[in-house]
């Protein structure tokens, strides 16, 4: 091996070791987001109820994923809406809250939980609206994340 080859090998090994040693100190930029999903009674995206009786319990599952880069304090609000209830990524529904589910989720973890719900009033095109809220630490309050979902129900007597 001549001196030039030896120098190149030495420099390559040095660069490799230095980069490996410094890698954990370099912050990685990754996209930050939360996930919200509503699953049917068998924890898949099938079998959602379409017609239920008044006060008849039905089972759904909630799914929340945290990819925000830190722990998150989530609340999922379940609201009872009607056909005209407005809800969007920027506006939460102005509707009565049926129940709230609350959990603290670590980064890159998910939270799947059963929701046994019931509706106490008859109505066609009743909407069960699911909104995800998260706790804003500097502001010390829960904020609407803009993530929402819904199922449509006919509630019969």
């Amino acid at each position, binding site marked *: 091996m001549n001196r030039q080859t030896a120098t190149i090998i030495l420099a390559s090994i040095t660069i490799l070791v230095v980069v490996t*040693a410094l890698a954990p100190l370099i912050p990685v930029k990754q996209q930050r987001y939360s996930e919200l999903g509503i699953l049917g009674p068998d924890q898949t995206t099938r079998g959602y109820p379409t017609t239920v009786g008044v006060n008849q319990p039905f089972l759904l599952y909630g799914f929340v994923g945290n990819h925000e880069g830190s*722990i998150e304090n989530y609340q999922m609000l379940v609201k009872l809406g009607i056909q005209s209830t407005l809800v969007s990524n920027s506006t939460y529904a102005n509707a009565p*809250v049926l129940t*709230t589910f*609350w959990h603290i989720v670590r980064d890159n973890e998910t939270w799947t939980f059963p929701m046994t719900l019931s509706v106490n009033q008859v109505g066609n095109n009743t909407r069960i609206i699911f909104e995800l809220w998260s706790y804003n*630490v500097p502001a010390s*309050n*829960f904020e*609407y994340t803009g993530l929402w979902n819904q199922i449509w129900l006919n509630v019969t007597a």
Partner: protein
Amino acid sequence: MISITPISSHEATGGQLATANSSVNSAFSSVYYAEQKGGDVSALVEKLNIAVSLIQRALAENATDPNAASADLSNATTIAQMVSMNSTSVSSGGSLARQLRLYESLGTVAATLGIAALAYLMGDRVYRRLWLRVYRNHVVKKSDE
């Protein structure tokens, strides 16, 4: 972002619920900052979720068993306060661990650069000396003798 405090709308057990809620949220803030400083907050998050479950159970059982609901809220508050206290040590542990990792990385870089410089400057000499030591007993003979 629009903000309200949704859980407060169910103030079935009044002030005790509000206290438990704010204790959990305050503990969450402490845990959040501990994590930001590099602390391992897994155990704290687990405990905090127990407190959250107790609050939710209290809300469910308030109508049928107010005493049990009250006990659950009290336990939730205690757990949250303990989590807040423990998060201080987790936070300082995280800072220390982060600092150690920094020193470890910088030490590795310095050592690598030092060894590489030595190898570059003195590698030839060291190699020749080693070669001579290894082959000092060898005798060179003419191949046609």
